[in-house]
């Protein structure tokens, strides 16, 4: 069994990479490996939007990531610097910045790039999905 981490740079629906990352993660657990961490960076932070509302006949990417967390304990880490400047704010950041709403909720978690380095060092494989 290997511990996998994914690094996702691609925005949802704009690029195949976001869907490919989710399909890869599902395949990792289907093959008996551990899908330990997904780190959302660059435009990939948009995958964590609590406000995502795709048509019902399309894959709901944020739901897919949440399912992975609930069924397999996958950490869903969103870079706080990349997220804030793109409008991904949890309740406390939204309050701190006086925003009208928040757009990110658990199990997604805002975190620093240090957690990416930690995921890289503590996983057997880290795979990047980029547009």
């Amino acid at each position, binding site marked *: 069994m290997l511990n996998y981490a994914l*690094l996702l740079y691609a925005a949802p629906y704009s690029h195949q990479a976001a869907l490919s990352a989710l399909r890869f993660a599902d395949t990792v657990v289907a093959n008996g490996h551990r899908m330990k961490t997904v780190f959302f*960076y*660059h435009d990939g932070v948009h995958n964590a939007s609590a406000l995502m509302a795709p048509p019902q006949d399309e894959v709901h990417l944020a739901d897919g990531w949440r399912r992975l967390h609930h069924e397999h304990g996958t950490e869903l880490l969103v870079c706080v*610097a*990349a997220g804030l400047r793109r409008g991904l704010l949890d309740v406390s950041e939204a309050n701190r910045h006086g925003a009208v709403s928040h757009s990110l909720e658990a199990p997604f978690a805002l975190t*620093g*790039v*240090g957690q*990416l*380095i*930690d995921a*890289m*060092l503590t996983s057997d494989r*880290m795979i*990047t999905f*980029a547009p």
Partner: protein
Amino acid sequence: MTDVSISRPVPQDLLVVLRHPPHGTHWLREGLDVALVAAAFGQRVGLLFQGDGIYALLKGQQAGALGQKGTHSQLAMLEMYDIETLWVSARGLNERGLSTDDLMLPVVPLEASAVTELLQRHPHTLIF
């Protein structure tokens, strides 16, 4: 002409590959952020500038008319974070009519075969 290093490059803990110019996208800024944070976490970090990423190193940069902050201030911080292993693609330099004298930091130009070896020998590689 650019002198190409003949000694084998020494791999670091993490190789960060930078392929985008300072303006136009956020790739370079966010790539350099990862390099700086990794160094702050005690990792030995090497940077490889490829393609238009070489423009990041051009002298005389400033926050420009595009309204972006640019990346020269991040590059100025590399030394403070002990990131002093900078490689550039020799072909990328030649294709752009540049030499190492045009760049703001000391770099080691690498031939294509050495770039391939660099990627193979690093335990971790992040590409931006």
